[in-house]
């Protein structure tokens, strides 16, 4: 019975669990198994030796998280940390970034163009961001964008708008690398936004120093119809603090991360919890996905992980958690706008140069109208994202605005990815052009929770 049990088709290989095999199917499955074993090679039966290339990260083997540094405790627990002031609204409709924001966007655009884009293809293949990219991002202070000046950061006011503009500009270079470079900043921003005095003094110095740790905001969980507001990961009170159990997926750079912010359910409300990578019971597994590959996505398993009660970041009534989910979605919207812009920038010259039937394909309405629709929807995505970001920056409620932005960025963003490939035809399907990567990346926008934060 061992063989038949092992050959049951469902639940693997993308086969739904109710599928069954007929006798011919069993024979085919057995043959396929033989073809895949090295028995053929040992007896010399295979005509051509096949070389299978595995990326180092394509694993399925689980390791303990990196030991990480020791974050020296400092500050007073239970006391509210420093908060960035909100940027008061002037009540004027305006689409002009401030001078500071524009300067930041210019610097980041240069980084995206000169550093991220050239590294994108290799990073996508290797499922890893090169050190030069990460250090360049650190050098211009990206992890500190959401940290107030008084805590060693660079912002005077709550920099949600600047964060959205930066995310957009970075993703115009490459989404995977944008996520890889923004991931530590997500944790720093979370600590700056919701941390106690103790949490800020314990962790933020590491982010404001030269050796910025990898860190990740882990909110997504691996199951269909995942709802970020109903996490299955639990935090249970114990004598020593909290015990965490659960699985988090699509965690950027989890293997290198030294600090995590994990979403969990505690006493019927959602909380954010700081977990250092050295904690017992914490394991990480490489989990490459369809796209966003340069961010070295991982699955994080928490099995009886003990943390002190002071590790709770923000409120225990669910409000900090909900705000975190919204601000993270906002960051993903901004990233989608950046990728959409990259698609538009790329297809525009392409359809004017590519000729068919004796003239550039751009001269055909069916092609030109696809480009027009990309431009229209992209601008609508941008304006919705900016509206949500500017409201958040001004301290106004933005739950509705971010929900609308996410809906449009998910739907229209994916449409842009799809049409980007279609406009290049067969050339769009091969890796010679980046549109296939943007197609894979844009699918992430409606799936991802956490990872980045503004």
């Amino acid at each position, binding site marked *: 019975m061992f063989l038949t049990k092992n050959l049951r088709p469902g639940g693997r290989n993308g086969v739904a669990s109710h599928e069954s095999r007929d006798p011919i199917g069993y024979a085919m499955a057995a043959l396929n198994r033989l073809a895949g074993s090295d028995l053929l090679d040992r007896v010399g039966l295979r005509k051509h030796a096949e070389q299978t290339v595995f990326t180092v990260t394509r694993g399925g083997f689980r390791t303990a998280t990196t030991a990480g540094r020791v974050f020296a405790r400092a500050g007073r627990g239970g006391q509210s940390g420093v908060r960035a002031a909100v940027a008061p609204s002037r009540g004027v*409709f305006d*689409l002009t970034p401030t001078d500071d924001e524009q300067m930041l966007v210019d610097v980041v655009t240069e980084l995206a163009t000169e550093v991220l884009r050239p590294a994108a293809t290799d990073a996508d293949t290797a499922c890893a961001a090169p050190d030069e990219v990460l250090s360049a991002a650190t050098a211009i202070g990206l992890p500190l964008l959401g940290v107030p000046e008084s805590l060693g950061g660079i912002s005077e006011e709550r920099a949600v708008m600047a964060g959205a503009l930066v995310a957009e500009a970075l993703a115009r270079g490459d989404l995977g690398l944008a996520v890889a470079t923004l991931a530590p900043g997500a944790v720093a921003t979370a600590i700056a936004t919701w941390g106690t005095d103790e949490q800020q003094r314990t962790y933020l110095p590491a982010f404001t120093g030269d050796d910025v740790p990898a860190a990740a905001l882990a909110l997504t969980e691996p199951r269909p119809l995942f709802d970020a507001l109903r996490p299955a990961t639990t935090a249970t009170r114990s004598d020593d603090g909290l015990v965490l159990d659960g699985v988090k997926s699509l965690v950027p750079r989890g293997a290198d991360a030294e600090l995590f912010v994990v979403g969990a359910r505690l006493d019927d409300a959602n909380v954010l919890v700081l977990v250092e990578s050295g904690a017992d019971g914490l394991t990480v597994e490489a989990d490459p996905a369809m796209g966003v590959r340069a961010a070295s996505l991982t699955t994080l398993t928490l099995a009886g992980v003990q943390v002190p009660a002071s590790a709770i970041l923000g409120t225990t009534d669910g409000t900090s958690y909900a705000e975190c989910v919204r601000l993270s979605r906002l960051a993903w919207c901004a990233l989608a706008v950046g990728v959409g812009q990259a698609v538009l920038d790329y297809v525009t010259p392409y359809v004017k140069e590519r000729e068919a039937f004796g003239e550039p394909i*751009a001269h055909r309405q069916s092609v*030109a109208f696809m480009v027009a629709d990309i431009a*229209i929807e992209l601008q609508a995505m941008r304006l919705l994202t900016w509206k949500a970001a500017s409201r958040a920056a001004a301290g106004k409620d933005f739950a509705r605005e971010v929900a*609308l932005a996410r809906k449009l960025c998910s739907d229209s963003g994916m449409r842009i990815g799809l049409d980007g490939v279609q406009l290049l035809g067969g050339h769009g399907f091969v890796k010679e052009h980046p549109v296939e990567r943007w197609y894979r990346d844009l699918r992430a926008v409606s799936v991802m929770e956490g990872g980045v934060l503004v």
Partner: protein
Amino acid sequence: MISLDDPTKLRQVRDQAHQVAMNMLRPISRRYDRAEHAYPKELDLLAAMIDGLSESGASSGAGASGVKRDASRDDGPAEGGVRNGTNLASVMSIAEMCWGDVGLLLSLPRQGLGNSAIASVGDPDQQERFGRMWASMAITEPDTGSDTANIRTTALLDGDEYVLNGEKIYVTSGERSDAVVVWATLDRSLGRAAIKSFVVPKGTPGMTVERLEHKLGIRASDTAAIRFVDCRVPAENLLGSPDIDTSQGFAGAMATFDNTRPLVAAMAVGCAKAALDLTRDLLEQAGVTVDYDRPALVQSAAAAKLLQMEADWEGARLLMLEAAWMADNRKANAMEASMAKAKAGRVASDITLSCVELCGSVGYSEGELLEKWARDSKILDIFEGTQQIQQLIIARRVLGLSSAELK
């Protein structure tokens, strides 16, 4: 500093228009949908009120007038170098009025598209002479729709008068207005540069309203077919410059569209909002509410559809505000105006039709206004440039192609 909320100083204008729409337009909305071609006499009072408000300065651009981009016009003081002026006020208040009723808004005396043309391209003397008239707009001909450069109505200079000959259709308020702004060519062989617009006052001999159309929607608005036979108007009634400047091409005449497209986008935004507001309410009574924080896919299909429609609607409205804001701040906005109209036009169709479907027979029956809005909205994706014309304009701009390359 980026901020996309409705500007503080225009909220009163917006809310005032909303009250007018709710208290003066909605109560007569169904009546004039049924009584097509009957003149909505209630509008005279409303028009007088709007005139009074604009005289007093309490209402900037409640109608279709305030759209000229020129330094002499008072767009209000710049705050931090940024203006929120008449263009923003116009789109915001027109959206509210069309939340009331698109057909009635189009029938408002002295707020016609012809008034926009006079405001956009008329010289100060013409503004003085025609400013108080109710002017409608005559462009389309039986054989010429989107290809406006191809119009056949002619205007020949004879002494100090132009003689007009031709047939115009789809003239909104063509029978009720005091004057019609007519597009005609000075010389068909010179193409689009020779197309000029002329103000023809009502009662001018040679101008005849042939018939009024029976329509799918906006039935409160009369839509006339007008014939011109040796119709003579003074030479001073030509709007703008009489010179045929081939280098400038169509720009003069087309400038009107840059100004009116955000207004049509506003009409679509308003009409769609009416359907969205009522449907949300009806669905709430049926136990369906939208949770903005939870994924659409874990909510009911009706809630997910509401979320998608609201996202599209908000996108259209922000594009509309962007186009108007650019005009207020003297930035060239031809592409953004087309984006606003394209997005708003298709979104209004999707929303109004989906709302009928979501509400079932309640939506389909004349007992509610949902079916009416689904009929009214269709024209908004057609007049002042169809969806496809907007896509052409946008594509040419994005791709940097001429009209000869991208036909």
